[in-house]
């Protein structure tokens, strides 16, 4: 497609949306630490690996090799993946459920914002990506530990997305 550029209003809104989701993911992580003493995501790498928790890549959004359409697609697909992961955490624990619900709704809305922008640019794939397969957490501990990993990685994912959006917003 001819060189595609993103409208300024999309940059502003999606950046704010990214910061909003990032703030909520941080709140979720703080609650998991306070309530369930799960405060160190680095201690959960092996568990995350054994649970088969997938991670979203934003390779096309890195400033070294930024491809706008690829970046949008990866951003949208990544948000759908996190929406699915957050859905799988349902019933994580009474203290956390409202945070997880709010975060899932905000991630879903952000995915919609990106998808509608791709549609407006006429670059949206025929079918919207599905939530994808996510692990089945079989214990409260797995859901809580999974919650720490998802919240922690979602913040890193959004940090990359914000950097790409800032990079794209430069005149």
């Amino acid at each position: 497609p001819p060189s595609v550029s993103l409208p300024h209003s999309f940059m502003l809104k999606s950046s704010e949306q990214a910061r909003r989701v990032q703030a909520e993911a941080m709140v979720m992580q703080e609650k998991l630490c306070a309530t369930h003493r799960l405060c160190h995501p680095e201690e959960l790498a092996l568990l995350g690996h054994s649970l088969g928790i997938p991670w979203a890549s934003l390779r096309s959004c890195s400033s070294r090799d930024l491809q706008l359409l690829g970046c949008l697609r990866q951003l949208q697909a990544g948000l759908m993946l996190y929406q699915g992961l957050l859905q799988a955490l349902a019933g994580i624990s009474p203290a956390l459920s409202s945070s997880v619900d709010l975060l899932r709704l905000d991630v879903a809305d952000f995915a919609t914002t990106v998808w509608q922008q791709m549609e407006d640019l006429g670059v949206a794939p025929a079918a919207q990506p599905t939530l994808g397969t996510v692990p089945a957490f079989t214990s409260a501990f797995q859901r809580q530990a999974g919650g720490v990993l998802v919240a922690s990685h979602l913040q890193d994912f959004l940090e990359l997305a914000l950097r790409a959006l800032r990079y794209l917003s430069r005149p």
Partner: protein
Amino acid sequence: EKCGHISLSAPIVRLGDPVTASCTVSQSCSHLEPEPQILWKLGAELLQHRGKQQTQPDGSQQSVITLPSLNSTHTFLHCYLNWSNSLQLLDQAELWAGHPPAMPYNLSCLMNLTTNSLTCQWEPGADTHLPTNFTLKSFKSRGDCQTKEDPIKDCVPADGQSYCSIPRKHLLLYQNMVIWVQAENALGTSLSPQLCLDPMDVVKLEPPTLSALDPNSEVARPRPDCLWLRWEPWKPSFYMNQKCELRYRPQLGEASWAQVGPLPSRTTRYELCGLRAATAYALQMRCIRLHLPGDWSSWSPSLELQTT
């Protein structure tokens, strides 16, 4: 079989409209009277000679009455039988009169970042004298609200209230939605004008938190005409880029506010100079969303600081 039965042209009419009613008295009740006489009362008033009474083919007695203009909003119509000189009440019907709902107006909405719900309020319009249901209706849309995407669950306000809150799970943030109010009673329905808005563009922003800095920890020899302070935005709005304005004036006397702005929404150290020495000042701040639609927050409570 009913002793007496009233049937109405309509139980609810417009104020001043006519009402026709018939009262049918079964033979089992009227046969004891050689010449059974059906009488009507409206509220407490006996309606003299107003009903046309006839014997029906099945032997029952029927009286038909027309009230030319019903002027009370709520009253009772009673059907009596004059039974060995005592008025016997056989049936009664409730009559309502009022107006179809006026068009609700002044619809406005605010997004609450603490409850994450969108609260809309409206003016109901003139009293209809009838039970009238208000419903806040909306659907998700895109762009400039020309297309209708998913409908949103109706928001039904508590009785008698003219506001309703749409919970977060029914909202699609950062996209436009169409919102209106429907008023409905027995005499009709009316709709308010529609609003087209993104909930995040109507956030109710709270003011930032101002706090004093200890001058001595800031500078070696604090200037007598300066004050040191810091502020940070309202926590639920941390993620929103905002710009702010600071206003200040001596606490005593009636000086008008001096104002500084635009200022960033958070700073750990701000020096305000050009003030009168040894004077107590009141400082306030407000903020507004940057680059994107939004309203000014109210002014923060005063921070009271004294120049040295």
